[in-house]
């Protein structure tokens, strides 16, 4: 295993994505919607409305949250408690949806795309081992989604602190749970998703087929990730660490098994009639 070659494959793929406006513009728009526009509108509306009936009603619904979560909510006013709950609890799953959507879109096209463009022939004749190609492609698919999410997360943190902070006595975000979610749980889920999507990308006949099939995999995975991300935020740090550890274990096992998905013959587009 030559890590230098793996990083070369990853770096070259990322460079191609950066050069593709048609890729990063929608990616940026998606991240902006989830991390900037929606939170900005919602949180600003709630904090600006003041102590009106609508905000009271939302504040009342906070009672459905687990007791541990309710205990964490800060703020003395209904709008303060509501906006805090929204910022900390409601948007957590978004942090999982955005990188999974972006990364699986990239991952689905990565191996089959080499074949379609004819560049698979170059890789097939190169000294790079198929495992190195697989891991390089996995890294190159993971990084754009994760990077977009971290940039979005930074923007989100600023928005939350600037809008909700004054209502709850100062800057409070990210909470410990959010740090754990972003740095520990999220990469684990990304790994699971990408290891599966890359396996598909290595086997199907076209990028269109890869996108279709990856949707079938990623939709249930997004649902599970959504639930687990909520659990991670509502629960204790220990729960979050355990959820992350499980995701990493599944992700690493799936990646290990997925390494066999890259076959030189498939890169050439001639294996099994492909």
């Amino acid at each position: 295993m030559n890590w230098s070659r793996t990083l070369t494959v990853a770096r070259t793929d990322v460079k191609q994505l950066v050069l593709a406006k048609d890729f990063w513009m929608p990616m940026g728009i998606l991240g902006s919607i989830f991390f900037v526009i929606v939170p900005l509108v919602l949180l600003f509306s709630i904090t600006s409305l003041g102590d009106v009936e609508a905000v009271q009603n939302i504040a009342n619904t906070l009672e459905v949250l687990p007791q541990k979560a309710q205990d964490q909510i800060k703020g003395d006013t209904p709008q303060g408690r509501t906006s805090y709950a929204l910022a900390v609890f409601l948007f957590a799953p978004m942090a999982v949806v955005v990188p999974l959507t972006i990364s699986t879109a990239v991952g689905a096209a990565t191996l089959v795309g080499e074949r379609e463009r004819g560049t698979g022939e170059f890789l097939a004749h190169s000294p790079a081992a198929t495992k190195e190609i697989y891991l390089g492609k996995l890294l190159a698919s993971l990084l754009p989604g994760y990077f977009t999410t971290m940039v979005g997360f930074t923007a989100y943190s600023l928005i939350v602190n600037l809008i909700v902070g004054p209502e709850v006595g100062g800057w409070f975000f990210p909470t410990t749970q959010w740090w754990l979610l972003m740095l520990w749980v999220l990469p684990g889920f990304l790994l699971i998703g990408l290891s599966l999507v890359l396996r598909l990308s290595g086997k199907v006949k076209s990028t269109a087929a890869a996108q279709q099939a990856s949707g079938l995999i990623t939709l249930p995975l997004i649902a599970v990730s959504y639930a687990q991300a909520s659990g991670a935020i509502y629960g204790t740090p220990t729960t979050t660490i355990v959820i992350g550890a499980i995701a990493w274990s599944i992700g690493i096992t799936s990646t290990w098994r997925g390494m066999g998905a890259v076959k030189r013959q498939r890169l050439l587009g001639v294996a099994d009639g492909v």
Partner: protein
Amino acid sequence: MAMASGTRASGTVASGCDFAADMSRVSSQPAPPAVSLRGINKSFNEVPALIGLDVIAPDGQITVLLGPNGAGKTTAIRIVTGAMTPDAGTVRTLGLDPEADGEEVRRACGVVSAKPALYDRLSGNDNLRYAAELHGVDKRIIDDRIWAAAGRFGIEHALDAQVGGYSTGMKTRLALARSVLHEPQLLLFDEPTSGLDPESAQAVLQLIRDMTSDGHTVVMCTHHLVEAEGLADHVVVLDAGNDLVAGKPADLIHQFWPDDSVEIAVEGDSSLADLHDLTVLAGVVRTESSKHGVRVILDSPDVTPDVVDALVRAGHRIRMVNPHEPTLEELYFAVRRSARDLGEATNEEVMS
């Protein structure tokens, strides 16, 4: 299986107590071939692509795989680097088994595929850097290597431009530059001139010729017979996944046309029959109709003046006397014709 074959691997090295004698014996043995494919079978979805293919590419020479589309040339190249695994047979590339020593084999090979297989969004420089890094070229010398390879193929001015904007000829030159960046021992070119205009194709062929003067071994696939003419040190004619003949072009031509011949044309149509009567002359083996008149097969070129003299004395006005030197194109068609005849004869035998 080939009807004729070229260099064969020696395989063994002498041993004994007399060191000097051993060395003398070792040095007298021919160099092992750069590529040796023996009895290769390969099928795709049960459709056979290669059937018992034998190919030997001598070290330091240009071997040209000739054949029509679908003959198995590309599959053979892919098997040489280990990018594809044969269903049966033995492969040795630079003395190594590509299946077991794939990384080492591919590190020593430079490949240009039929489509240049370049990354259109990247610049020429990035494409070359990617290849250099994958082949493990020392990072301190990558820039020098890129500049030297690009200069050699005349694309140094376009290195910073996106490859998507390159012309077909420039893409081929970039692919050629990429194939030599890591200084490989073996160069494998699959239809390197496809899609090029005649001038660019000639330039590419000249570059390939230059490369063997540096000691590289080249294996090139083509179905353009004119390209192979004068370029090939060694040819292998393939058809339907099988090698029909292999060897040096001159040897193969001599094998198919062992006698010298001249093509003769005279004025007037009625004289063809007279020309065929030349077989009565000493030294004339036989005559065949040709494009311009008659081809006279001789047992020696010295007989030519006697033939001309006989015709003049018979009252013919000679329009053309042309010593016939068969081309690779003629060889190719003769080989394919002969293979077809052999196939038909075998079928008839089976039927009877």
